């Protein structure tokens, strides 16, 4: 158990380096709150391990106690002790300031991107045959009505897309229409942004309420054209069963 405190410190530093610098090489960077949680868990685990017996506890806590009381602390250790005693209150003061200082950032928005559709739209099947003619017609309608925002390449980068917040959906992204059933798209196209529930912030959406301009038949065929053009398939009930 010799050097248990040093081992814990090395473990924590190693964990931090791994989470902060090595893991992002393989995946998205972790948010600070998650890194904090992992480090806290690591430290808590070490504490539990070293407090399992009186001997290991003394081994672990002894250096901390000697450091804080200054017992046998000379030279660099003595200077470090004074530094800790100065830095700790400064850190507390700094944290207090950053917590209380007015922020220039607007309130965070937790907008639900794919909220639950109204019951009447759940499970509807596309009543039109998935024929080349219908797909071609759908693509033509898409080009006329949808592509200005969602893009000729179905990538959400149409000429009108740049000013909108939230931006138009990128149908090539596997997180959009590939996750949804055709009936969901039918709802979203027919009722538009104003048809969204409160958690999806309908007041921000520029998606038109197409039911006032397009017949249902055109909407169903646009859906076919979207899936075909974006190289995606709709999610189906069969896959879920």
């Amino acid at each position, binding site marked *: 158990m010799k050097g248990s405190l040093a081992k814990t410190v090395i473990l924590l530093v190693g964990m931090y380096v791994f989470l902060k610098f090595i893991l992002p090489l393989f995946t998205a960077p972790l948010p600070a709150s998650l890194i904090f949680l992992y480090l806290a868990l690591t430290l808590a685990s070490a504490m539990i391990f070293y407090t399992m017996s009186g001997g290991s506890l003394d081994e672990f806590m002894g250096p901390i106690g000697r450091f804080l009381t200054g017992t046998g602390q000379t030279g660099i250790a003595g200077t470090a002790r004074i530094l800790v005693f100065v830095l700790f209150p400064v850190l507390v003061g700094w944290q*207090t300031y950053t917590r209380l200082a007015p922020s220039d950032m*607007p309130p965070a928005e937790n907008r639900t991107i794919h909220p639950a559709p109204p019951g009447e739209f759940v499970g509807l099947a596309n009543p039109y045959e998935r024929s080349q003619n219908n797909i071609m017609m759908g693509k033509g309608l898409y080009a006329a009505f949808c592509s200005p925002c969602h893009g000729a390449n179905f990538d959400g980068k149409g000429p009108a897309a740049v*000013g909108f917040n939230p931006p138009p959906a990128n149908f090539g992204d596997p997180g959009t229409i590939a996750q949804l059933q055709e009936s969901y798209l039918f709802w979203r196209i027919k*009722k538009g942004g104003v048809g969204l*529930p409160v958690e999806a912030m309908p007041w921000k959406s520029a998606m038109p309420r197409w039911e006032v*301009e397009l017949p249902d038949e055109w909407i169903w065929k646009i859906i076919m054209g979207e899936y075909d053009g974006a190289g995606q398939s709709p999610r189906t009930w069969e896959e879920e069963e």
Partner: protein
Amino acid sequence: MGYQKIFNVALGLILTVTGAGVSCVFASDPPPESGAGSVAVRLHLTDDAIPADDPNAAVWDTIQPAEFKLAPQVHWPDRIQEVTVKSVKVRGIHNGQDLAILLEYADPSNDAADAAAIEFMVGDKMAHFAHGQEMLQVEGGAVNIWYWKKEDGKATDMSAKGFKTIRAQDDQNVSATGAWQDGTWRVVFSRPLQTGDEHDVQVTPGEWRNVAFAFWDGEIVDGAVKERGSQKAVSSWWYFRAEPPPDNSIYGYVVLGIVLAAGFQFFLVRKIRRGNES
């Protein structure tokens, strides 16, 4: 010795919390994606009079602008696929009584029908950015629109709650002045922060509110105005806030935090020493 162990555990737990806090300080969040543009307009607080009718006042150049991209209005007919005004720089200032907002945008020609507008939500109900149009699952609120047109030479204070409901208010309390130079319009809108009119946005320093923008290029093309009515450049909702007066009580809390932390250290060391002696 048992007493000391208990105390050491307590000390360890305190150090755990401190260590975790320190780790949090060093583990900063990933930076936001670049090129996203601004999300908010800050109305800077000044002790002086605001440049209510001077789009070229020197103070404007001391303020860092927020910049918002604009899109053709495609949400409802009549749509437009291409617009002249692609983005707008927005600066704001207030003195606790009055506010002024400067819109700066590129428009190659100075035309009589050139126009600009700022839209706000009114009250606490969320309103759709397209003139507060009806939402199907959410009861929406109204919008307040400040509209400036070059040939009018003034602002019109307007209200809307849904399409075809836009109208000039009975109480007109917004003013606007525009100046065009070298292909750039600078239009300044001004108004008291609070008006007492229920149809107006009320601006309270420190409170976040929503804001959107619209622009019309009034150039005559083939005998007709190029952009008019619903054919315009628009933005979605963004945020603005009038800067609150400085709150010096923060520094009192900072000093209190430092004193408490130092006191904690003092008593902690004394406790450990006494434990060791016993």
